[in-house]
């Protein structure tokens, strides 16, 4: 088929208004807000149903056209920009919350449901339940976030969000619909086992294994009260010990750390935010006392935060996009890296060095995931999109930071193409062999986001 015929077929599948190869649409979908250089897109399509996705994938497979699924488009690392052209499948019209199971505490949602929509829906209809949502803007999709090992304000207590997936409906590269998790044999999407667990195959695969159309995500009891206990420390070396002790007492819902050179008053300190929860104010007051004491004994001190700051960080979602406006230039990307906790002091020290080398004021942060089993480190680079030199600096800093994360024993998160290459270079050959074999078996025509996780 030529491109006119492909477009015509796509319009036949999704309706004339939801498939396009207009230059303006292709322009927008060839960019993301990160530092990636734009890459060409041939078609943009917005399906509404699983069946439409199935037909699109069948068409792509028959015609050997690359296909790239997209949620909120906010990974910042270019994962939704095709490497080899083809179709961008913007999933945001599939935006139904299909079921909330109160007792088994899960939400069954379509792939395009935004974090904002699920958050508000639960707040209004199930006020005693809360969803795992990231710090990303409310336009991020739940599915997009959890499928990249997303994390957020429930990660410290419950682990990374990829682990909170109960079940998936997937369009495989050959166009078949498959279900994974309990939904493979039950009407209830309550869990992943006890059967062989294939769900991990689709997490951080960046659309290379299939296209997720429905997903069940765990929900959690929502405590009546939530507060933040801010702390300050001057010596990053003391972070591991402090967090080890902090998690041992089991009261932290979320733990965030930050270190940045700007504004000036923040320079030289590590900021600590421990989120605590409870059913009564008395419980919270007691927890504050315990944390103040723990901070003091661990080389930190309690910080009384201004109300504005306090309220900002208690908001859901947190207004993290503010970080993108630091340079007033509309550009922002960061290396997130899953790290062992003991390497965090080095990560802060060396991350700051990378930033300074590229003339970017250090802006570093981290969040605990699943007590101290993992900590995700953020090395943030804000830049001016209108300044090619700044963009180049950001790209170089990102690349160097990916290398740093790997050297420290960590793994870059939702890595852009260059980061993926670095990961693959270091990966156990048999892991790579299995990955390649599975992928080639599922997708012999190589249509699923080709160029990502490309194992030669």
């Amino acid at each position, binding site marked *: 088929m030529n491109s006119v015929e492909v477009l015509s077929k796509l319009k036949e599948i999704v309706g004339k208004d939801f498939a396009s190869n207009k230059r303006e649409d292709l322009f927008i979908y060839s960019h993301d*807000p990160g530092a990636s250089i734009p890459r060409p897109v041939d078609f943009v399509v917005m399906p509404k149903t699983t069946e439409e996705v199935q037909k699109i994938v069948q068409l792509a497979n028959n015609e050997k056209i690359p296909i790239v699924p997209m949620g909120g488009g906010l990974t910042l690392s270019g994962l939704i920009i095709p490497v080899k052209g083809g179709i961008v499948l913007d999933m945001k019209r599939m935006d139904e919350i299909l079921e909330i199971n109160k007792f088994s505490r899960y939400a069954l949602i379509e792939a395009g449901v935004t974090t904002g929509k699920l958050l508000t829906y639960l707040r209004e209809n199930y006020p005693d339940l809360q969803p795992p949502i990231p710090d990303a803007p*409310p336009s991020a999709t739940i599915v997009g976030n959890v499928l990249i090992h997303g994390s957020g304000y429930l990660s410290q207590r419950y682990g990374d969000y990829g682990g909170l997936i109960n079940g998936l409906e997937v369009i495989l590269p050959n166009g078949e619909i498959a279900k994974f998790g309990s939904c493979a044999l039950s009407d209830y999407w309550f869990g992943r086992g006890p059967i062989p667990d294939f769900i991990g195959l689709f997490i951080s695969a960046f659309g290379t294994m299939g296209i997720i159309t429905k997903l069940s995500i765990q929900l959690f009891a929502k405590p009546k009260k939530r507060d933040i206990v801010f702390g300050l420390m001057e010596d990053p070396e003391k972070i591991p010990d402090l967090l080890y002790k902090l998690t041992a007492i089991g009261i932290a819902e979320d733990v965030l750390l930050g270190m940045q050179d700007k504004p000036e008053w923040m320079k030289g300190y590590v900021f600590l935010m421990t989120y605590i929860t409870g059913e009564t104010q008395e419980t919270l007051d007691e927890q504050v006392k315990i944390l103040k004491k723990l901070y003091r004994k661990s080389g930190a001190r309690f910080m009384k935060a201004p109300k504005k700051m306090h309220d900002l960080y208690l908001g859901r979602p947190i207004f993290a996009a503010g970080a993108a406006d630091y340079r007033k230039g509309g550009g922002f990307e960061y290396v997130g890296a899953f790290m062992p906790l003991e390497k965090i002091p080095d990560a802060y020290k060396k991350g700051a060095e990378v930033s300074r080398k590229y003339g970017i004021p250090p802006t570093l942060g981290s969040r605990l995931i699943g007590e101290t089993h993992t900590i995700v480190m953020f090395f943030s680079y804000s830049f001016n999109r209108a300044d090619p030199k700044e963009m180049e600096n950001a790209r170089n800093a990102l690349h160097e930071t990916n290398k740093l994360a790997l050297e420290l024993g960590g793994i870059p998160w939702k890595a852009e193409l260059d980061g993926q290459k670095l990961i693959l270079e270091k990966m156990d050959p048999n892991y790579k062999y299995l990955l390649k074999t599975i992928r080639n078996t599922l997708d012999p025509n190589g249509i699923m986001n080709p160029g990502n996780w490309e194992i030669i």
Partner: protein
Amino acid sequence: MTSEAELDWKDIIHRCFRCGYCKFTYDYNDFNCPSYKKHRFETYSTGGRLWLIYGVINGDLQWSENLANVLYSCPTCGNCMENCRFEKFNFLLVDMIEAARAEATKSGFCPEKQKVLVERATNPEMWNPYGEPNSDNEALKKEYDLPDEAEWVYFIGCTSNYRQQNLRDATLRLLKKTGIDFTLVDEHCCTSPMLRTGQVDCASDFMNYNIARIKNAGASKVVTSCAGCYRTLLKDYEKFGADLGFEVYHTGELIKKLLNDGKIKIASNYDKVITYHDPCHLGRHMDMYEVPREVIKQIPGIKFVEMERIRENAWCCGAGGGVKIGYPDWALEISKERLEEAKETGAAVLTSMCPFCKTNLSDANETFNMGFEVLDLIEILDQLDIEILE
């Protein structure tokens, strides 16, 4: 476009990160950008538009019919300005889209349907975007026994004068009842349709003409029943360097003032359930939310119920920014969503304070057989007894 923005918008437009807050309602439950909600491609969000405009500025894109179409399919409702979190940037979003429309026009890409607005308004037999023969308003002056000079000018606005004469006449009767010293002038288009659609070349001439007419009538105050005229007179005339030399009131403000100053009193009941639609050009653009509500609350017998999306979070009627003339079916779809929301309140009357909103809401009410009585608040007041207290 503010003078600050005029100088700087091309230098800051790339600040948009496309985080997507601009698409939402306050609580993120739904999309509140009519254009994004309709098209769903990122291209049709405010962020998408800004990135396209920046693409033109830096040479990655050239003007085209479709690019212009993306820019013009925005009712300039300002929801994006309310929800964008980037300070000292968010208030410019609609200005930047309008400025880019002006660039599109300069480059020959103003869509044909929107061009008609200015072709008609600049026709010396019309001076209005509706293509009606110009009314010099002398007949109305005679009918309502208005002087040649007065303290106030009622600036009728083209929509009221040529499409919503009921509102015009209700306003004239109400103003007469209140006893204020007012008159009419041979007004021309206020320029709102020109500015909103980027056809700005002749705007200054129209502004200077209208100002001269108002001054010739000896007026120190202007009152208008049109949200579009109100925004344009108060915000845009100054931006174009025009020196007003008179105060500008919306009819809602004038009535509220007269009520609060104890000069008039509403002396009969309005025993109906009503809800109020915030016009974008009065609300988000001019920050006027309480005035109409305060007036409504002073009407005896009325039962006032609010819709879910109100004030800064209101859903647009879909008429503004050249959308009604450019995309008439879509404009009605947008209004239909508003009427459905109004239906949930149980109100029988949908009121607003903008003749253009009234036109579009009424059209949708009729097209989709929604069964509302769609009335401007002034038309409701006109049905009531007004007592002059001093």
